[in-house]
């Protein structure tokens, strides 16, 4: 005991503060992967490559913020990817086929995302359906609607004016990444500094107890599902702006990756634990893994194995650091 105490007293205060933070494990894992990549690959730290990673992270990051917020509530929405894809396709149709001005088309598509998220929330709260099961169904509907609308063919001719939102940079930082950071700041403010955030954690921990405390559980659920739909739509629109076409495949990879990112980032699937910031750290780990796999020229047949091993190592590192924290009494 005295040895542990002396170890604690020897540790610099900043390090002690870092270790007390529940995000310390995933943050250190992120920094470690970043540092190792920088040492091993001479290309990793180039400005262009940093921009590539940040831009790639932005889109899945937005959906990760949405999914992690739902997971804190104890919910899951498997249709977020297809909401993003559908809203992207609809925005393309509104701009190209209906000839609407781009800002109006984008706003309407965001509203569609809100509506689809609201619909998911409504079905979960009113009918008392399990969100995981329900959204398997709605993902099928939204994904099917993409194929019905596009026949599988991308919508081209997206106005060049909006492509800045996906391809542009401000002071060398990709615009979609800046948008994601702004959304993350808002999500952190809401979850940490407002009653709504406290209610979300309370509901995630124990919905029945939250109800007894007078928290309007269904209203909060409905609100978070709705906002999650809108964030996914935003990701879809930004991807349309990035590609310059509304691809029917947008959102296909936004189903499992955000859940994995959130879990890596310490968000519990059972609810009540974690933070959108941790989830973004998790998404950052995944984004770096995807990047270094290409930089190192890993065979496509080994990519799944390599990325899986790195994810397992990152989670193990996080778990070990938590155990160390507990043992240390910090």
């Amino acid at each position, binding site marked *: 005991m005295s040895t542990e105490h002396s170890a604690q007293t020897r540790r610099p205060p900043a390090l002690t503060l870092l270790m007390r933070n529940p995000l310390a494990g995933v943050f250190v894992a992120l920094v470690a992967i970043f540092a190792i990549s920088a040492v091993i690959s001479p290309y990793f730290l180039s400005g262009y490559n940093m921009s590539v990673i940040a831009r790639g992270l932005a889109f899945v990051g937005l959906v990760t913020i949405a999914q992690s917020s739902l997971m804190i509530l104890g919910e899951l929405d498997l249709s977020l990817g297809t909401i993003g894809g559908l809203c992207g396709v609809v925005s393309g149709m509104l701009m190209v086929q209906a000839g609407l001005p781009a800002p109006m088309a984008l706003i309407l598509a965001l509203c569609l995302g809100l509506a689809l998220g609201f619909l998911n929330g409504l079905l979960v709260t009113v009918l008392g359906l399990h969100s995981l099961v329900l959204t398997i169904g709605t993902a099928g509907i939204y994904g099917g609607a993409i194929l019905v609308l596009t026949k599988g*063919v991308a919508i081209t001719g997206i106005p060049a004016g909006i492509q800045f939102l996906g391809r542009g940079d401000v002071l060398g930082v990709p615009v979609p990444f800046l948008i994601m950071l702004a959304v993350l700041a808002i999500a952190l403010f809401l979850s940490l500094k407002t009653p709504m955030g406290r209610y979300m954690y309370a509901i995630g921990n124990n919905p029945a107890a939250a109800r007894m405390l007078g928290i309007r559980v269904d209203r909060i659920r409905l609100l978070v599902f709705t906002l999650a739909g809108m964030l996914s739509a935003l990701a879809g629109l930004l991807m349309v702006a990035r590609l310059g076409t509304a691809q029917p495949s947008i959102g296909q990879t936004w189903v499992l990756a955000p859940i994995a990112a959130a879990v890596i980032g310490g968000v519990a699937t059972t609810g009540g634990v974690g933070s959108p910031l941790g989830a973004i750290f998790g998404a950052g780990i995944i984004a770096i893994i995807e990047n270094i796999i290409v930089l190192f020229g890993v065979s496509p047949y080994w990519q799944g194995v390599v990325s899986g091993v790195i994810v397992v190592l990152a989670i193990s590192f996080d778990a070990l650091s938590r155990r160390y924290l507990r043992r240390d009494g910090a």
Partner: protein
Amino acid sequence: MKKLAAMLAGVALAMPIAAAAQDAAGTTKKDSYRFLIVPKVVHPWFDKVNDGAQMAAAALKAQTGAEIEIVYSAPQTADVVQQVQIVESAISTRPDGIAIDLLDPSGNRGSLEAAQSQDIPLVIFDSVPPEGMQIPYIGSDFCEQAKIAARRLVEVLGGEGEVAIMMGVPTAPNHSIRAECHREVFAEHPGIKVVAEGIDNDSIETAQQQAAAIMQANPGLKGWVASDAAGPIGIGQAIVEAGKQGQVTLVGLDNLPEMLDMIRSGVADSSSASQPELQGYWSVMLLWAQATGAPVPGYLDTGNAFLTKDNLGN
């Protein structure tokens, strides 16, 4: 001092010659080259492209002594977003050239422009460049390949019957061109009716599911053509599972081992095959030529082969 002046004069005289040698097309040399091959998706057809690329690398190494590294980097799914991410990450490594099979020319345009802006030589194989972009491309005549298959099916069916078309990835230009050319041939024959079209997204499993459902819904279906290499393999499996071998004619596409087995076993009548090894081989050759500063042709046709039980052998 005189020696120094003579040396400088010698250097000055040699400079134009050296500069001329440097500037002459195809004379830039390096000790090593690293070329990136980016297919549409992890798929056996693209493994053959990679085989061809490795052959070219070996040939170049033997002839020039330079180390030639082929980095084969494939998206796990046929998703343009993933492909763009791979190309953009690869640009960071400053390769000596990138050969890519585009999932969607419009969606890939940004990443190709990024590569061109960094003077990285490009070659497009099995696809066509985005409109307005000057990039050498390699492939067979996709339309002719499809027409060979469609005409064969019409011939086997005697010009009459219900047929179906399996499209691959609808946004992939080579797949959509083939599907359109199938339709053109069938439209020339009033007795042929296209009753269904499926989308398999270059997945054998999806092709099998789509084909099974289409044959259920259209019991009078007499024949199939496909627009991608995975399609006919899935269709063949569905034909066998439905017990319709001999009742439904399949004219396949390309020369994957499963396709060849189906022709040998009689599940498929024949196949109109592009030659992926040649596409990989010439992709590397054109990248290398560009890296040396040599001019390259804008288009290189690797041709098609028509495969039947008779000419396949064992």
